[in-house]
C-alpha cells in the first residue's frame, strides 16, 4: 500500500465540524439579537359589520398593510406603518372607506407592542392585515414567479 496514496483526513474533518457549528451559532445569534430585523410578523383583524376589534402588533416599523371591505381590496387613508410602543392606532370604516386616526396612548398593552383598534360602521365585513415579510425570503428576485 503506497504511503503517498493514503490520506489522513482527521484534521480537516474536525475543522469543518467546528466551523459549521460556529457559523450556525453566529447566524442564530445574529437573528435572535435582531440584527437582520424582527423576523416575519403578522397581525390581522376581522370585524363583521357594526363591530369593533383590537389586536396587538410588535412596535416596529416597516409594516405593510392590506385592507378589504366585503372582500374588495381598499386603501387606508392616513395609514401609519411605524407602530410605537404602548400606543393604540384607531382605524374606522365609514361609508365604504377606511380612515386611520392619530395614535393615542393605549391601556394594558404589553411592552414592546402597539394596539390596533378597528371600528366597523360599514355594512360589510372588514379585514385588515399588518404584515412584515421574512428578511431572508426563499425566492429573492421573483424572476420566474
Amino acid at each position: 500500500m503506497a504511503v503517498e496514496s493514503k490520506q489522513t483526513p482527521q484534521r480537516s474533518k474536525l475543522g469543518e465540524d467546528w466551523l459549521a457549528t460556529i457559523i450556525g451559532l453566529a447566524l442564530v445569534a445574529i437573528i435572535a439579537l435582531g440584527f437582520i430585523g424582527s423576523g416575519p410578523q403578522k397581525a390581522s383583524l376581522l370585524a363583521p359589520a357594526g363591530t369593533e376589534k383590537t389586536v396587538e402588533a410588535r412596535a416596529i416599523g416597516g409594516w405593510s398593510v392590506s385592507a378589504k371591505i366585503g372582500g374588495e381590496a381598499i386603501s387606508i387613508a392616513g395609514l401609519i406603518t411605524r407602530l410605537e410602543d404602548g400606543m393604540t392606532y384607531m382605524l374606522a370604516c365609514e361609508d365604504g372607506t377606511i380612515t386611520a386616526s392619530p395614535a393615542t396612548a393605549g391601556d394594558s398593552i404589553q411592552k414592546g407592542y402597539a394596539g390596533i383598534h378597528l371600528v366597523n360602521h360599514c355594512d360589510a365585513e372588514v379585514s385588515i392585515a399588518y404584515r412584515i415579510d421574512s428578511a431572508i425570503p426563499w425566492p429573492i428576485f421573483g424572476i420566474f414567479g
Partner: protein
Amino acid sequence: MSETSLSKHDYTGVFIGAAIVIVLTLLVAELDLAVSNFFKDQGVSKNPLEYPLIAVIIGLLANAGLRIIGLFERVRPAIRTELFLKVGLVLLGARISIGDLMANGAGGLIQALIMVTSVFFFTWWLAGKFNLPPTLKAVMASAVSICGVSAAIAAAGAVIAKKEEVTYITALVILTAIPLMVVTPWIAQAIDLDDTVAGAWFGGNIDTTAAVVGAGTIHGDKAQEIATVVKLAQNVLIGVVSFALALYFALVVEKDQGQRPSPMMIWNRFPKFVVGFVLVSALASADIFTSAHVSEMQAVSQWAFALAFVCIGIDFSPGALKQMGRGPIIVYIAATIFNTILALIAAGIIFGVLDLGR
C-alpha cells in the same frame, strides 16, 4: 479536501466555485417557487418536486457543464456539501424542542445501534465474500451503516485507507442516496406510512445526512424533524465505530505497524455540530427566541440545505466508479437494499409499534 494549502491560483478557483454554487442556489429558489406555482395552478396543493430534487438536478447539470469546460477540479474546493449541511442542521435545532429531541433521540439511538451494528457486519461479511481489501471493507461498511461520506472519511482516517477508496465510496454514496431521497418519500406516501415512522425510516436508511434531510423535506415537516434527529443519533456513533475500527486494524490487520488508537479518537471523530444543534434546540425550548426568529432561522436553514443539495450534484464523480470494478458496486447495492428493508422494519417497530418517538 478544501483545507489543504491553497495557492493564489486555487483561491481564484474557490471564488469561482463559490459564486457558481450561490448563483445556482438562487436559481433553485426561483425554480422551486415557479414549480410550486405551476402545480398550484393545476390544483395540486403540495409540490411533488420539492427543492432538494431540483437542487440536485441543477447540481448534476452544473457538474456535467464544469467537466466539459474543464473547470471541475478547479472549483471543487468550494463544493462544501457537508459544511453547508451542518450549518443548516445547527439552525434546524431551533425548530425541534429539547423534549422531542430527547424522546425521538432515545428511539433514534436504539434504532441507530440496531442499524449500525447489523448493516456494518452484513456489509463487512458480504465484502469479505467478494474479497474486497480490508480498508475498502471498513470504509464501505461505515458509509452504508452510519452516515455516508462523513463516516467514510472518518473510517478512512481510522484504518488509513487509500484516497481512491474514499473517492469511490463517496461516488457510490451519492449514486444511491439521490434515488433513495426521491423514492423513499414516494413509497412512504404510497403505503400510507405514518410521518414519524417515515422520518425514522429515512433517517435510518439513507446513507448521507443531506439526502436524509432532503427525503424528510419532500415528505413533510414532521418527517424532516424525525429523520434529522434519527440521523444525528446515528451520526454520533461515528466516533465509536472509528475507534473500534482503528483498534481492530492496529491489533489484527496491521499488528506489526505498532500504531495504537487512543480513546480520544471517539471524541475526535464525534460530529461536533451536534453540540450546536442541541444547544440551539435547548435555547428554543427555553423560549429565548420568538416565533418570528424561529421562522427566520428556518429560512436560513433552508438556504443552507439548498446550497448543500446543489453541492451534492456538483460533487458527484461517476469516473471514480469505473476504477474499482463490479464487485464493490454489487456489495454496496446489496448492503443498501438490506439497510433499506431493515430500517423500515426497525422504524416500524420502534417508532410505530413501541411508539418511542412523538
